[in-house]
């Protein structure tokens, strides 16, 4: 399992995001959903990279990170749709965000770890967390209704 990995340049981490109900993130029809993991289904590979310039961001909420999908190359971001913070996907190279000299707040999430689970809180809309519902096939959204209807605890695992 041990192998050397020398990066010739900065690269995002590649991994999967599952939730405690054994659902994985699945991308189809421009939509990111959480579905129960099955044999016949390939979960989406998530890209993740830390923000280089977190000085202006809150310190105790977790590591500010950019989140994206490997294939197709999309990034998760939050914006208001009809006065409601909404999780969206945008065609965006995650490394371009990484190389920005200022934090690109709509694309940033505070990654907070507790035990083996993680939460992802929007930097642009504090108090809004990435969430899924426990029934299969729900879209991945942002909510401020934490710990009730929605699942906001995820298991982030790195692929090599």
């Amino acid at each position: 399992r041990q192998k050397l990995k020398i990066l010739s340049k900065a690269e995002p981490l590649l991994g999967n995001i599952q939730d405690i109900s054994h659902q994985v993130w699945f991308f189809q029809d421009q939509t990111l959903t959480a579905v129960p993991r099955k044999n016949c289904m390939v979960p989406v590979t998530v890209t993740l990279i830390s923000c280089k310039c977190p000085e202006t961001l809150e310190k105790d909420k977790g590591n500010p990170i950019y989140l994206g999908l490997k294939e197709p190359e999309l990034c998760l971001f939050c914006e208001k749709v009809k006065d409601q913070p909404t999780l969206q996907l945008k065609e965006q190279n995650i490394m371009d965000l990484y190389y920005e000299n200022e934090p690109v707040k709509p694309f940033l999430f505070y990654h907070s770890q507790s035990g083996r689970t993680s939460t992802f809180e929007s930097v642009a809309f504090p108090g809004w967390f990435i969430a899924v519902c426990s029934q299969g096939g729900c879209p991945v959204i942002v909510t401020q209704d934490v710990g009730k209807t929605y699942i906001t605890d995820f298991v982030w695992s790195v692929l090599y």
Partner: protein
Amino acid sequence: MGVPCLLFCGVSLALPLFVRAVECKDSSVKNEIISVDHPFAFNCTYPPLTSEQVNITWYKPSSKIPVSRNTQSRIHQDESWILFLPMTWADAGIYQCVIKNINSCHRIHVNLTAFRKYWCGTSRNVLPNLSDEYLQTLHFGKDDSLMCHLNFPKSCVLDLIKWYKDCKEIKEERFNTVGMKLFVKNVSAEDRGKYACQARLTHGGKEHTVLNSISVDVKKIEYGDRIPKITYPRNNSIEVELGSTLIVDCNITDVRENTNLRCWKVNNTLVDLYYRESKRIREGYESCVPFEQYNRYTVNITFLQVKMEDYGRHFVCHAGVSAAYIVLKLPVPDSRAYLIGGFIALTGVAVSVMCIYNVFKIDIVLWYRSTFRSTGAIDDGKLYDAYVLYPKPQSGSQRQEVDMMVLKILPEVLERQCGYKLFIFGRDELPGQAVASVIDENIKLCRRLIIIIVPESLSFGLLKNMSEEQITVYNALIQDGMKVILIELEKIKDYTDMPESIKYIRQKHGAIRWSGDFTEESQSAKTKFWKKVRFHMPPTRYPPS
């Protein structure tokens, strides 16, 4: 007039509906594998439209007639769901769900494949890809849970959930069913295996059985420290020449899943940003070596050319909340090395001087005495320079040698050549004087005591029974300032038989061994032996001729 108007109105009303139907966007096909004779439900959603008022219609394969909404029908639409109670072989095919609102329309295709699930006792080979098996993971050593995914519309009542492992119903205390979940305490490797959850589904008074197969894996994952460790630098200084190139690695170990940022900063700014213009100091690319539980990262900082302003400044490597810095220092001449060097040199010189002095001590002292000799008499109340004490061996040759030494050679060299005045018992006493008084009186008038010893003198007891010698040595030892010169005429191997006083003198002042022969001729005060003797003698008033 009325008819065309009505026709026009009808067309104008129908046209937008017609246009909208044409505009329906097709989504990619969703595949579902369903076991026959089991209930199945599929929810038609199109996330961008869910929060709005939408109209959803389900169609069977190659049919333009919407699926029935009659709840008693085996296949019917229940709100946004299509419900099969239960699924049959004949139901396989591509179903369509049209979801539309005022502005848009989407057509979702769902390909249903039917298969026969063989479960416990009815084992038969099933194509591995034709499986509705769920994959779930339990974490070793932790309390974890499995989920029974039962997605049906609200009209379906699900209860009596039973869990099976390898076809046996789970009844152990370690397992606990709450709602759709099976909680497992203290997960062990044996918990890996084929599970199934079974539930009763009641709909419209009819009962059905739902069965999910779950393949469970057990993973051992250590969730280590969230705080990364910086193994280098350690807030240390680095000596570097002005103008040189410098590369410093920052070594970090961190848990694989951690998302801590690793970087070099100066003045709390990324070095790449701080030296954005000159690019003189830059952060290098990161390398990563994965280990079982953690990764080892290396991030370097490159100084293309060290400048004066870099010295004393903190260059900080950050890894999450951890930080460690380096400080550049000008290489100063090492004063400590100089001190040590100087000390060694001084010690060397001192040791050399001591050695030279020890080797040439006698010559130096004799030269000094001859150069800076006092012209006047030494006024210390002494009459003689040395009292000569010697044994009188019984053997003829030894007696001859001792006499030759004492009566001829000593006077020749010390008295005639060097100008000393000796008191030799047996030569200088006045006849008729008592031995004890001669010694007692004369020794007080002497500056030194010369004792001549020969090996045989021991056996005959130099000082054992002769009061003359005893008095002499006693006086010499108790009188302050009286130096004793011990001359061995031959090599004396063993001093153990010697009297304590001689041993003491030998230990305190050492002995001079005679190295010449016993002839009157060829005696020079400049030989090594006589130099030694003269060194121990008091300063002379005139030098040897």
